[in-house]
């Protein structure tokens, strides 16, 4: 089986600080890969490189065999790449529902021609997106707060909205940046279930997470990153129990 997302020879440094040092990584459909490593190891930077937020010095990314290199961020998203952000980046001026409504790969109003000349198509599109959003909100238990402002809901719920918004993309590959940081209780279980369900539907998932328990519960495999390098790949159990990696993680 070939990989959904292929990263080859990814290099990037900022004024001498290396955040990616010839990284090769494959994400497989239906599998959840955990990215582990201390702060500053280059985990989030790798996401930024994959999404095209930051331009790499060298290296390539392809999704389902199609190269993403020349594409700006929004086109990568339209090809089926979705992500969440460490600091959420929800739209505070929009309700939870409207945050989700912007998520589909093809948005109703992407074409101005449609906006002006095909109102019926816009309406159909909007109705379709609304149904999908309602469905996702239902599954993630967010229905009761669908029309709240995002700053009026709990932090855990905001994280969940971030994941839900990324789900609207029907992505082939989903990158989750610390989805569990600061989340507890029922929401924790909801996010966990959501991620499992998505993987089961054949999406390739990559998770950056500090919560070891979550990584262990959820990820099929782990990758240990340090100073912009992939040091080890294996089962989460292996990585966690490795004394060298533990030493690097906590620093000595």
């Amino acid at each position, binding site marked *: 089986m070939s990989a959904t997302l292929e990263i080859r020879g990814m290099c990037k440094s900022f004024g001498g600080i290396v955040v990616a040092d010839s990284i090769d990584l494959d994400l497989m459909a239906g599998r959840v890969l955990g990215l582990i490593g201390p702060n500053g190891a280059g985990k989030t930077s790798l996401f930024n490189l994959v999404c095209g937020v930051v331009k790499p010095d060298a290296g390539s990314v392809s999704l389902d065999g199609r190269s993403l290199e020349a594409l700006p961020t929004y086109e990568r998203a*339209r090809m089926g790449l979705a992500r969440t*952000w460490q600091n959420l980046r929800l*739209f505070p001026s929009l309700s939870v529902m409207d945050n989700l*409504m*912007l998520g589909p790969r093809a*948005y109703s*109003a*992407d074409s101005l021609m449609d906006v002006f000349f095909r109102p019926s198509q816009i309406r159909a599109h909007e109705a379709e997106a*609304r149904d999908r959003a309602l469905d996702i909100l239902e599954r993630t238990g967010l229905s009761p707060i669908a*029309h709240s402002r995002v700053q009026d809901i709990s932090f855990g719920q905001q994280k969940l909205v971030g994941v839900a918004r990324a789900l609207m993309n029907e992505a082939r590959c989903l990158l989750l940046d610390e989805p569990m940081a600061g989340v507890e209780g029922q929401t924790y279980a909801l996010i966990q279930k959501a991620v499992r369900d998505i993987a089961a539907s054949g999406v390739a998932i990559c998770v950056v997470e500090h919560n070891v328990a979550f990584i262990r519960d959820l990820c099929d495999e782990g990758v240990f990153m340090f100073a912009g390098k992939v040091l080890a790949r294996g089962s989460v159990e292996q990585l966690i129990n490795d004394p060298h990696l533990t030493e690097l993680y906590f620093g000595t």
Partner: protein
Amino acid sequence: MDYVFTILILIGLFVILASSFDLVIGHCGLISIAHPIFYAIGAYISAMLSKQYGLPVPVSILCGGVGALLASALVAVPALRVSGDYLLIASIGFQLGLIELAKHFHEIGGAGGLTNIPSFLIKDFGRESYVVLVLVLAALTVLFIRWLTQGPYGRMMTAMRDDELAFSMLGRNAIWVKVAVFAIGSGIAGIAGGLYAHYFRFLEPDQFGLLQSSAVLTMVVVGGMRTTMGPVIGAIVLQLMPQVITFFNLPPSILGPLQGLLFTGLVLFFMFVRPQGLLPAADLWVGRKQQGDAGQSAKEARS
């Protein structure tokens, strides 16, 4: 009576200008104050086409709108490719540079101004008809912008203003949205320019400078950004206020600066004392009629 008609027409034109400017600066969050230059482009194109080439006035007004739309893209595409901040400087450079340029072109009247622009409607149907035309178009503009900003496109502009990076990660093209909205707003201003030209029948480059910019900006800031009625109220209030000053019979050397002082002073006052304007915008975007289940659950959520 003509005096009243003229004021009504000016109010109508400034409602169009302020509303379309609010679309650009308020709804889309694009920093540019060069709106009057697109008004000028529309006015000059329309005037020249009808005067020199004998095109029917409505057609030349439309051409003026299209010309302003294209010119705005010419400024926006290179500037926005870099970053949003550059649009402002590029557009000011474009505005002042074009005014400077116009002063040197004798074909379009130069610094002395373009005269004898063909009139429209007035000869056949009287000034009232032009007043009706302008006010109807002003109302249509306001309704159009309301329709656009409360639909899916408005949702898109709101999200882009909030967080451009997250916006593009969802697959939305921020630069295209900005260029498109800037062009729509400028195109509308161009049409208003044509309407101005064929009523007043005289254009001069200097009237589209920074004074005009601050006047339109004042209308939006004082009225309330991102509201339907804010720019309308702003335009009416700020169009009537200078009229009051003209009753004092001041010499023109004082009158001009006094008006400028009034406009800029009002913006400063509002910026510090009431930044949200007369009509504050809601901080949550609400589209027009959220249909079906959504509307239902909104009610449930509130109860």
